[in-house]
């Protein structure tokens, strides 16, 4: 290479950098967000929210690619295979939701503790380290994809375990970043004031981080390996994440609707008791068929069948509080998404989960599109919704607590985003449910789950049209997402009425 070549590259790079700076500035003057409205903790929180939204986009994009491959198997074959697209789809989901949760906690930490964050600098460093690591992991997923059957592949490329594919080095990094986050939360509460919400949050974060460690080991014995793998996946989404959402919800309802702290905290304790009381041993519904002893059929079936109870209680709670306050609140989109959470959690986790949780049924639905149907509605209904609600709370404050009610401008945008996202995911869920029933019947019950049976079910017209409908509703979901981002960037722009004043007037 000669010097003029290098100079050319440098020139191009600087030109690119300058254009991106100009674009960035144009963008900033267009969104008109004033960060002086935010506290330090909230500034850190919105960084997490921004990455969360970007990863949400990645999730939907790679979901669409994977869904296309069900219909056109040759699409991106040996370039971006189904396994790669699917891995990024579900990994991006887990990571964006965790980013969202961390953002939520940083958002209310100073308010709830009544003091400033203890380790703000450390928190910022942790954010950049985590984001750098996530970027690197995704690049390796895309460019390297797979490795030889050696330990080094598991350390540096991917661990090949659904949902927690991140290579070992990243696992260790994630644990360190979580510890910093945990330190910030606990130390801030200790410096400020302690509360029931703080107590539940602290214990829940210990469990959440500790469980991750259970998924960091390689084992030859696949029964043992899947045993611990489910500790992470199940005890996250059906225990610790639910409680974390309970905490976030508790704080939001207090702020949004002015519900009394004593009532909120009593509810929170009841939810913790019901959730952990059913969810911890409900873990057994994943131990029916992996080689573990038969007593899990009874224990897993029984306790997991109780899991919908706290979810019913949460619906009652949200609807009651909203009604009791006569829907009086200054952030309609946030409240709408909170209601969507209560129902989405109940239907996706409670109803869809219950339908296949008894071993007599699970024997036939296990490992079919039935599981995917439930997975989509549950993750979206329980965890995407609450994060989106919080994005709206954050953007309102970022705009200086302006009014976001029924007579605001362009409310059609958030309403359509709400409708398209929920309608899209529900449509995919129903399509997958039909495919799941067909598979349970033809592949599992009639054909006895052989490879021939599997493909007989995959080739069946009702399965194939279900895959087309899933892709269609995936497109609807994507449209909803685009509208959501547009709305988040523009809502409240030009609004001059302040929320508290409006509330007082009514």
């Amino acid at each position, binding site marked *: 290479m000669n010097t003029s070549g290098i100079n050319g590259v440098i020139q191009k790079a600087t030109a690119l950098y300058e254009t991106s700076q100009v674009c960035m500035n144009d963008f900033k003057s267009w969104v008109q967000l004033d960060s002086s409205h935010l506290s330090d903790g909230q500034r850190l929180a919105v960084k997490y929210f921004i990455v969360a939204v970007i990863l949400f986009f990645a999730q939907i994009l790679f979901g669409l690619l994977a869904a296309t491959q069900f219909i056109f198997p040759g699409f991106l074959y040996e370039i971006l*295979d189904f396994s790669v697209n699917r891995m990024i789809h579900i990994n991006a989901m887990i990571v964006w939701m965790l980013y969202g949760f961390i953002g939520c906690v940083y958002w209310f930490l100073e308010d709830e503790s009544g003091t400033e964050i203890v380790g703000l600098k450390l928190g910022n460093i942790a954010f950049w380290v985590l984001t750098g690591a996530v970027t690197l992991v995704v690049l390796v997923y895309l460019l390297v994809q*797979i490795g030889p059957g050696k330990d080094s592949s598991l350390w540096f490329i991917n661990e090949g375990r659904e949902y927690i594919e991140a290579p070992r080095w990243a696992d260790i990094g994630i644990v360190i970043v979580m510890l910093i986050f945990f330190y910030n939360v606990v130390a801030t509460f200790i410096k400020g004031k302690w509360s029931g919400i703080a107590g539940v949050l602290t214990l829940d974060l210990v469990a959440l981080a500790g469980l991750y460690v259970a998924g960091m080991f390689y084992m030859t*014995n696949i029964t043992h390996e899947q045993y611990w793998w489910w500790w992470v996946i199940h005890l996250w989404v059906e225990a610790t994440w639910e409680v974390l959402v309970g905490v976030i919800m508790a704080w939001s309802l207090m702020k949004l609707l002015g519900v009394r702290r004593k009532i909120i905290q009593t509810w929170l304790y009841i939810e913790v*008791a019901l959730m952990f009381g059913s969810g911890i041993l409900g873990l057994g519904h994943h131990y029916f068929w992996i080689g573990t002893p038969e007593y899990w059929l009874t224990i897993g079936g029984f306790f997991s069948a109780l899991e919908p109870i706290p979810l019913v209680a949460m619906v009652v709670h949200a609807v009651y509080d909203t009604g009791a306050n006569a829907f009086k609140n200054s952030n309609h989109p946030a409240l709408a998404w909170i209601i969507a959470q209560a129902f989405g959690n109940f239907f996706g986790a409670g109803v869809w989960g219950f339908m296949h949780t008894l071993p007599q049924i699970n024997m036939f639905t296990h490992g079919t599109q039935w599981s995917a149907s439930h997975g989509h509605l549950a993750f979206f209904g329980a965890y995407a919704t609450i994060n989106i609600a919080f994005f709206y709370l954050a953007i309102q404050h970022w705009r200086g607590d302006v009014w976001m009610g029924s007579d605001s401008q362009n409310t059609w945008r958030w309403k359509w985003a709400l409708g398209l996202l929920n309608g899209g995911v529900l449509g995919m869920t129903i399509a997958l449910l039909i495919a799941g029933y067909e598979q349970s019947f033809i592949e599992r019950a009639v054909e006895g789950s052989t490879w021939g049976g599997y493909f007989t079910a995959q080739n069946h017209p009702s399965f194939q049209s279900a895959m087309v409908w899933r892709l269609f509703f995936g497109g609807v979901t994507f449209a909803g997402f685009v509208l959501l981002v547009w709305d988040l960037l523009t809502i409240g722009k030009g609004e001059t009425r302040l929320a508290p004043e409006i509330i007082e007037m009514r």
Partner: protein
Amino acid sequence: MNEIPLWASETFWKKTAIWVTAGSFLVLVVLTMDSLSKTSAGSKRVPAYSVINKKIDYQYNKELHKFMPVISENELLFGKEYTEQEALQLVDLGKKTTQAKNCMNCHTLLGNGAYYAPDLTKAWLDKGWVSKEVREDMMMRFLMDPEKNARTFGSNRKMPNLNITEQEAKGIIAFLKWMSSIDTNGFPYNFKTINAEE
């Protein structure tokens, strides 16, 4: 009048939450220790890795009312009798390869994973390998060049080439054979193996 009943008091529910959580977790820990010991390699439910030297089948057990693995006489893999240590090494290579190649994001193993390709729980016993005489050879060729040896059953869905070496392919086959011997409480139901008469 203003007394708060017990069931509505914050401290009561706080204590309940703590006790219920601690109690459930304790039970889980005890059950975990029991389950892990009952499923270690070499237990009744999860056979030792040297089971790859044996004939494995999967049949309906009338007394237990469920399908059970049936392990019988010697049926060597790749014409070789493996010691326990050698078997462990081979199965370990296979297991590690399935993770490094990300098999689980297309297939299910023990029913867990993705739904783009068939379940691998009893793949060793599948009729798709035509007969016991050609099975090993077919599996080797398929794993090392799935594109040319594609078996799509009319679906056009082909497994991609994952650069699996000969040794890795042997490992995977040993791993699949071992996995098919695990007692999975009767899942999958009604599976007819390659050994069954038509």
